[in-house]
């Protein structure tokens, strides 16, 4: 391992990336640093789970039970005593599935978004005392959240199978949406982690706008329900793209529109690179301010 440290670290890192790889090395940079530290990411994710379930007799059971409770609650609320008209149209349990399929990607976002501004501060003892590659914190947060989302996803599929007797074959295509979504999320995490370390106000802003995001995203409704006059703007919210596509693949068996899928990748890659660049730009001063 050889490294150089200069007053402007970001340029030093950029330079070494350009030297070492292809001419477009900087495009691959966020991936290569993640890959280089894969062992570290793995060890720390394992640690987080070991820690979470330590001292609880049932361990993983708790990770499974909470999405089941949530899905159960939605089913009861929307099909039981409360006769919500949208739910009645969709049929018993279907509206619960409809919401739950959207809530999985949505919760993935909110969990990471809420955590991002404090990410550096939470790990300050690590960053200040060891040679810790701080950008891996983003990967670690993502992996952690993905594991819980994966559990919920499995429960969703099981529930769908039980209720409707089949899962559309297009559900197999879900990873094609999840991959760009993860890149988008990582970009968001890096961006807000950097901003949040500089001032704690960011964390408060994030918590205040969180309740608004759920209504601006097609969780309780679908984009098709949006009045035609403003439907075009629905996809200005990047979450809408990923939520709609995931739900359509998993429940309706509808393959996403090609243009929309292209937009998903475009948004993802822009968020990913911008997030990483901002994080790396401020990385060297973040250690001193958290």
């Amino acid at each position: 391992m050889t490294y150089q440290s200069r007053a402007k670290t970001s340029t030093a890192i950029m330079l070494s990336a350009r030297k070492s790889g292809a001419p477009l090395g900087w495009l691959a940079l966020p991936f290569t640093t993640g890959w280089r530290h894969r062992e570290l990411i793995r060890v720390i994710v394992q640690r987080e789970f070991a820690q979470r379930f330590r001292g609880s007799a049932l361990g993983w059971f708790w990770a499974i039970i909470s999405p089941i409770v949530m899905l159960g609650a939605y089913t009861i609320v929307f099909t039981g005593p409360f006769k919500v008209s949208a739910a009645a149209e969709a049929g018993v349990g279907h509206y619960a599935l409809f919401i739950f399929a959207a809530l999985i990607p949505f919760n993935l976002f909110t969990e990471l978004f809420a955590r991002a501004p404090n990410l550096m501060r939470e790990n300050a003892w690590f960053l200040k005392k060891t040679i810790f590659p701080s950008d891996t914190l983003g990967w670690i947060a993502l992996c952690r959240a993905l594991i819980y989302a994966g559990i919920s996803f499995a429960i969703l599929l099981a529930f769908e199978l039980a209720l409707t007797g089949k899962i559309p074959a297009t559900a197999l295509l879900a990873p094609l949406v999840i991959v760009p979504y993860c890149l988008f999320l990582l970009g968001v995490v890096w961006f807000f982690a950097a901003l949040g370390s500089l001032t704690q106000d960011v964390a408060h802003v994030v918590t205040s706008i969180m309740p608004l995001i759920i209504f601006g995203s097609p969780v309780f409704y679908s984009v098709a329900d949006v009045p035609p006059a403003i439907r075009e703007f629905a996809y200005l919210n990047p979450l809408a793209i990923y939520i709609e596509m995931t739900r359509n693949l998993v429940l309706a068996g509808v393959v996403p529109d090609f243009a929309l899928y292209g937009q998903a990748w475009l948004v993802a890659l822009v968020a990913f690179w911008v997030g990483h660049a901002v994080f790396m730009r401020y990385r060297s001063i973040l250690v001193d301010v958290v």
Partner: protein
Amino acid sequence: MSSDLVIRAAGIGKSYQFYTHYADRFKQMVFGRFRKFYKDYWVLRDISFEARRGESIGIIGRNGAGKSTLLQIICGITTPTYGEVEVHGRVAPVLSLGTGFDTELTGRENAIIGGVVLGLRRADIIKRFDSIAEFAAIGQFIDQPMKLYSTGMFMRLAFAICAHVDAELMVIDESLSVGDTAFQDKCRTFLRNFRKTGSILLVSHSVAELHNLCDRVVWIDRGRIREMGKPSEVIPKYQSAVHEEHDDASRFLIEA
């Protein structure tokens, strides 16, 4: 660039920004390019030195002189405000109290994470774990959460991990003095062997330790290098200077 150069610090300086009001930090973010809203506190200024493979360098200086900041810069934990640092080879930092341990986790788990952070593979660390535990010699505590550890146990584990990562440079921050005599002896024996192949950067207030372990001593005074040379030359000067100076707060002035 010579291949056996381990550290090259070329005119490095480090300042921290001191804000009088919290709002100033925000103003600095927004209007920083037009005006300065903070006071600089210069921890280090114009530090230049080099270390070759197998060379051990001691750093002395009074509290607040900038020794720990210098070590942090060498380790790559923080970056200098100006100047350049080059470090070649794997660094194992035994920094004062903690070395990035999660106190909720057991010593074993922290050893694995610590080893991976320093660039070892998980499998390698697990293979070496018995040897780490033997070096740390903290018995059953290795499988207890580290919040139950004493200061000495912390340091024992930190040193044991760093001794097992095939480092080329060990950076040690005053931590040896925390251990008891038996452990200090063990560490000294290790370091004497380590010096045959690797380099050591050691901050210490113990004159005997510096004499024993270091080829060269750098005396840092208020962020600048005051003397650099053989331990037998620099240490006596440092000691007489410390006796003459008053122990007051004048060393910690923040300039406008």
